[in-house]
């Protein structure tokens, strides 16, 4: 790890100001992703801006027709939240499947969504539920936020403050864990709303994506059998030492069925 300056602002505008004024500086939330890259000297920011003193970024609120999760809310809190468990059980389940207990108690939803790791779980939940990413400057729909492999719509200096989730009629998540890392080899989030179904896939490709044929089929008939025959194209999916693209494509269908099962149970 190379030396860096450390800032711990207590106001969002101060944090944003530091972030824009110090070139190559980085926000640190739970540090679960960032600190390892510093230790391996893969990233060498001159300054870290710690978000942990921005207390109002942590917590879960009931907005009636939506739930808002503060950016600094750790995964364990989402997993254990009675509110989330009742209103969007699939999201609580997703949070409970991230990493291990240590990672869940430090890692945050804001960090996970900002990082947009192609195998991370939250992007599937956020896109699958059609959530809104609330930042220091604006609100961004999930459909326009995730831009592929570690890329997001965040502008320099922009800080995620919360994620707002609309309440689905039903939702479920199924994750096939990569054997070693236990990130998603393939994870599928399925959410049923009054006006249709959304299906979001993580792990399979370079970034989270939706599967319109499955969404249409499930909108007709919200049952695993409706999508059993829908195969997605291998093209553009990831092949690595753990799984080849055709296997990942196969798993998308299997996990989508299991996600529907989970949503129904």
């Amino acid at each position, binding site marked *: 790890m190379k030396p860096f300056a450390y800032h711990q602002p207590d106001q969002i505008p101060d944090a944003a100001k530091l972030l824009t004024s110090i070139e190559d500086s980085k926000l640190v939330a739970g540090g679960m992703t960032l600190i390892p890259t510093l230790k*391996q*000297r893969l990233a060498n920011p001159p300054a870290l801006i710690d978000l942990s003193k921005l207390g109002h970024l942590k917590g879960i609120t009931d907005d009636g027709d939506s739930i808002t999760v503060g950016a600094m809310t750790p995964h364990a809190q989402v997993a254990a939240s009675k509110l989330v468990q009742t209103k969007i059980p699939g999201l609580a389940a997703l949070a409970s499947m991230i990493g291990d207990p240590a990672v869940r108690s430090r890692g945050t939803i804001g960090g996970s969504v900002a990082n947009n790791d192609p195998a991370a779980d939250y992007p599937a939940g956020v896109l699958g539920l059609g959530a809104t990413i609330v930042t220091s400057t604006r609100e961004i729909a999930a459909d326009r936020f995730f831009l592929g492999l570690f890329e997001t719509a965040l502008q320099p200096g922009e800080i995620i403050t919360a994620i707002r989730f609309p309440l689905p009629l039903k939702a479920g998540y199924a994750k096939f864990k990569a*054997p*070693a890392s236990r990130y998603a080899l393939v994870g599928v989030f399925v959410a049923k709303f009054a006006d249709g179904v959304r299906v979001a896939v993580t792990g399979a490709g370079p970034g989270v994506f939706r599967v319109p044929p499955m969404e249409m089929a499930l909108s007709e008939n919200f049952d695993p059998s409706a999508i059993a025959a829908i195969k997605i194209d291998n093209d553009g999916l990831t092949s690595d030492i753990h*799984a*080849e693209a055709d*296997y990942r494509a196969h798993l998308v269908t299997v996990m989508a069925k299991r996600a529907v099962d989970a949503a129904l149970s």
Partner: protein
Amino acid sequence: MGNVIGIGASPKRKEDQRFLTGRGNYVSDIKRPGMTAGVFVRSPHGHAVLRGIDRSAALAAPGVIAVLTGADAAADKLGSLPCGWGISDAKGVPMKEPPFPMLAQGKVRFVGDMVAFVIAETPEQANAAAELLKIDYEVLPSVVGVLEAFRPGAPQLFDDVPNNICCDWELGDKAAVESAFRKAAHVAKLSLVNNRLIGNPMEPRAAIAEYEPGTDRFTLWTTSQFPHVVRFLMGALVLNIPQHKLRVVAPDVGGGFGVKQFHYGEEAVITWAAKRVMRPIKWVASRSEGYVSDRHGRDHVTEAELALDETGKFLAFRVNTLANMGGYLSTFGPNIPTNLYGPLLGGVYTTPAIYCNVKVVFTNTVPVDAYRGAGRPEATFVLERIVDVAASEMGIDRVEIRRRNMIPKEAYPYQTPVLVQYDSGDPMGCLDGALVAADVKNFGVRKSASASKGKFRGLGYSTYVEACGLAPSRFAGRLGARGGLYESATVRVHPTGQVTVMIGTHNHGQGHETTFAQIVSEKLGVAFENVDIVFGDTDRVQFGMGTYGSRSLVVGGAALSKATDKVVAKGKKIAAHLLEAAEVDIQFKSGKFSVAGTDRAKTFEEIAGAAYVPHDYPLEVLEPGLEEQAYYDPVNFTYPGGCHIAEVEVDPETGTVTLVNYTAVDDVGTVINPMIVEGQLHGGIVQGVGQALFENAVYDESSGQLLSGSLMDYCMPRADHMPMMKVATHSTLCTHTPMGVKGCGEVGTIGSPAAVINAVVDALSHLGVTHVDMPATPNRIWRLLQNASLPVAAE
């Protein structure tokens, strides 16, 4: 006064007091005055010419003390890292043994090969300076797989090693095997890969070296399983430091599994460098650094054939293996896939003729050497897999074919056609015990229950034997060992009767401090708490060979037993004098020396006191003091083994294999501490399950990059992968070790991979699957099922 806790008891482990309260003392806990930090700069290329290193920018960086390279080592005329075994081919031609410089010279041969050593005031400064080295590489094509490496036209690692073949080794009677094959009613054939593994001890390797100019002495603290051997190899053969001027300490070591039983270049470089900079230096490997420098294990490609008569009796077994050595010969490297592999191919069966050819091949990968089991898991896997293949092809039940070929209990000692003679065993007894313990009777019910959930259930057997307790020196010497393989122990009885044992083995998790104390407590009648075990320091302990090959109890414990016998013998002489009796009339029992048939007696403490306060003492015939030393060289290996039964469930939709039941009934001879034996079996089994289902070291073919370079990509077995294991012992006593003990450290790892894979194949056999390579990952199983369920093309 505490109690005697002897053989067969399971006291809590003495060493856990410090381990579980965070009071262990590991190399990285040690701080020396004026200590500097060292960082190794390693090759990022699998294969390259090293054209030059410009260290000027690094030397100018803040805090940098020195930057050392292979050129400096050459200028100081340092030796090559020695190989402890010299094997030969069938014609007696010695293996090719190219030099293994501790810092690369001329060429780098694997990703991780050491190129330079940077010493600075802090690790951060050393790391920063390391990035400033300008290293001029001319990158060459790499070759990482054994099949590719020995093909004509493959990249050549060494100019004088044609086709990268280190040795074309063989064992057994080729002609007898060929003639048996001609008469066979059936020949089963199997091609398989034994996957490459990375050891992953919890504590990464580390070292500290210090030179004291006042005494001209070096001290090396290192994460080693055998500090005396490091002192010998490094001092005598690499750095030219006289043995009395070199102290090697291996303090608490956080696991080894073989990874720490080699003499590594890092140890030599840091010791040499400590004198050059006249400051202590510390180096601690990161996990990622360990992945590209800790010696790897396994990595075979094998073709095997088993000849059988019409009743399923094995007539002959023929095995051709290509074994990966990596870029250089490590300390035991060439011994593992040859001497620790071929002699195990007889297994627990009466196969009369066996022939084995092993081509030991260099590739652009980390050197390969011993990893828990070392050669014996590979042999067991080939044999136990092909037995299943033969059974299924001939329509004979898998248990039945094993029974028909098993060595009966009465036939021991049993001479195999591949050098080794088993002294004792009862494979049938282990099998019978395991069949009951695993409730094989009701497997069908469980299989149907799985089927009703859409899952395939399978059962797999492995009835196996291994050779451990390394090693009878005479035998090993004939096979190419360049050193002895005995062990030593000193029993120091203090004037007040407590005991300190100095032993040449090394405890890095196995519980020796407990087991060995139990032996002393039993044999001398001394309270368990009054026995301490000292190891791991060449200044405190007489020469010893260390811990590997399930040898510590078998060989070290035997030396300890012998030394306690000597203490008793001397004690009897002292007692005879004090009790005014003839020495032959003195009995020693339960900590008391007494005159037979009388109530006259002296306690062990009284005898110890007399030995050190010799006022009334037979000085004419006996020296004062009560301290005895013994060396023990075994006459044979010990042959633990047993029967493992694995039960798996396969999810055909995802290809996931779940281990649902695991049963092991093993013959490990006399059990000193049942709790520790059970722990060794559990750990060993989990490591074998890791090989069967999860672990795989993968290199990129062309660049030689390690693709499974961290725990994010290299899958270690975890607690939630394992069912509760049923582990039991069914022991026959070893006939030649003093206490009847056999090794138990590696059996779990040796027996389990075949049991698991046999279970997976059984689960899928209805689809025509006959073999699954390790690790049986979901992706691999799914693909097999894809191919299996393809309709046979119409003519």
